[in-house]
């Protein structure tokens, strides 16, 4: 097999003035993974190259990094696959977490956010007489999130975390869902005030970066949506801005078949005058440009059908 060119991010905050990329030419073996290349370089070319690894088989979650822009595990990425769409392999550390050295990041906030969602059963609850049984269907509901290996790829890919460090981010929120939706968890200590608060479930943009990044197909965003449905169905989520947004949206579509875009912000931000003022100013500029008119909102379409569908779906529950 041919050689491959690797371009690897290097930075040691203790000694280097600025980050740099080192280029290496690596002889390839058939089936070689990016992690094996890093090991080769560490052993034979540059012993100062820092990266994390343990199991080498996509179970421990240690070797998450960015490979040609993709947030993934080095041990499950074949070099030959990467080279199908790019001339060289660019290896960089995870984003959204502080850098320690080269490809190693500080996972501190990853774990502190995990703690913040209290991912455990409440130990003060009385013990049951026998085992806590669970049906296969009940297990299905939390199985996906249970397979998380805490690698941080989703956190690295998160678009909200990039601009708001408070965001609990996909991994911790998926973990929260795994506990909140556990059928044995009548006493789960899920902190709904934290999940409904700033940086919680309602701050997710639903961009699906985490779904795309996750090497174990945990689909964290779907877990976040499940938490929202829980929060709306039974708990306090309805009075958050995000909860009001969803409820108004569904009500509007049920009523008219199509969303009343102009009424939505007015309803959701009612009472928040300063914020409303900003949006109303944009609205006036839109009217001036002929983008919106002042006429009534036009319902579509099979409105009666929509209302009956909603009623019928409710009946099915």
């Amino acid at each position, binding site marked *: 097999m041919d050689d491959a060119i690797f371009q690897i991010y290097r930075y040691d905050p203790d000694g280097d003035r600025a980050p740099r990329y080192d280029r290496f030419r690596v002889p390839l073996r058939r089936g070689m993974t990016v992690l094996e290349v890093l090991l080769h370089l560490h052993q034979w070319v540059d012993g100062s190259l820092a990266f994390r690894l343990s199991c080498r088989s996509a179970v421990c979650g240690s070797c998450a990094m960015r490979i040609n822009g993709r947030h993934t595990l080095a041990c499950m990425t074949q070099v030959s696959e990467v080279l199908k769409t790019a001339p060289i392999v660019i290896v960089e550390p995870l984003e959204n977490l502080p850098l320690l050295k080269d490809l190693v990041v500080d996972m501190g906030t990853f774990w502190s956010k995990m703690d913040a969602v209290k991912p455990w059963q409440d130990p003060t609850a009385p013990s049951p007489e026998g085992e806590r049984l669970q049906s296969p269907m009940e297990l299905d509901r939390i199985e996906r999130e249970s397979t998380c290996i805490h690698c941080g790829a989703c956190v690295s890919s998160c678009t909200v975390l990039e601009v708001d460090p408070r965001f609990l981010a996909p991994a911790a929120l998926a973990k929260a869902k795994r506990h909140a939706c556990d059928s044995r968890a009548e006493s789960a200590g899920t902190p709904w005030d934290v999940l409904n608060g700033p940086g919680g479930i309602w701050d997710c943009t639903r961009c699906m970066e985490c779904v795309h990044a996750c090497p174990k197909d945990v689909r964290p965003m779907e877990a976040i949506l499940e938490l929202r449905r829980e929060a709306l169905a039974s708990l306090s989520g309805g009075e958050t801005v*995000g909860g009001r*947004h969803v409820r108004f949206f569904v009500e509007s579509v049920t009523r008219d078949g199509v969303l009343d875009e102009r009424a939505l912000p007015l309803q959701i931000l009612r009472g928040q005058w300063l914020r409303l003022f900003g949006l109303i100013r944009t609205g006036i500029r839109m009217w001036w440009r002929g*983008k919106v008119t002042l006429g009534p909102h036009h319902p579509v379409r099979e409105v009666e059908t929509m209302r009956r569908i909603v009623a019928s*779906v409710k009946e099915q529950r």
Partner: protein
Amino acid sequence: MSLRYAYYPGCVAKGNCPELYQSMALVAGRLGIDLVELKKAPCTGAGVAASQDLLLVDTYNALTFSMAEEMGLPILTICSTCVGSMRQAEARIKETPGRLDQVNRVLRDQGRRYGGSAQITHFLWVLLREIGLERLQREVRRPLAGLRIAPFYGCYILRPAGIMGVDDPDHPTSLDRVIRALGGEPVEYTGKSRCCGFPILLENEAASLAMTGNHLAEAVDRGADLMVTPCPLCHMNLDLQQSRAARQIGRPLDLPVLHLPQLVGLALGIPPKPLGLSRHLVSVRGLLKRATRRE
């Protein structure tokens, strides 16, 4: 070959961005795309309703799919969020055991039935796959030569890759290729496949505006003259909120943002006015001057 579609413009094209609806009608005429509008079709749920009730979302969409099936036509939309929501619903209905029966139990009461054969596409993909870039290039009357154009894909047309299936979400190229076929020069920047921030404009305004601002700033720094997007919801943040985004990140931006049919229309030689270019909040006047100077 005539191209005929059940047309689903989406609420934004008929609400906050009427210039999108209007420009698509003109461009479709030029390219020989026959659009039969689904006037009775409901909202797709736009990713928002999924936070309340997935069965409801699937049933809304199955209703739309049944209408298109009745017409015997594939669905075409000009909204990435709509194409994403519809494709996700279609995949859930197909893959979840019993789901098709479940939605049909609801639809039956309304005298409708979804047969499970919906085909859903976006104008961008039609350009690429049905019209073809070679023909598109031949149709160009006013090439966008010399214009540096930043493609903004947004989320819903890319992810999840398994359901959308056209672009590699890490390195999308479809919009770049269309820009090149129209004679423009695509600008490479990392923000092109990221989120515009619009879905949390009300929930977390600072984060939403920072996301939009950062992508616009990156495009400006890479020398973009304008940005183009296939998603009107992205457009609502990138254009409507641009001045506030500039304040949020503390630097001027002033980058015109066009809808995809507007960009295609300009290159096909349709005058700016009927394309609704004057309706954007970020003025395109400077851009048009530059474009004509280069002609």
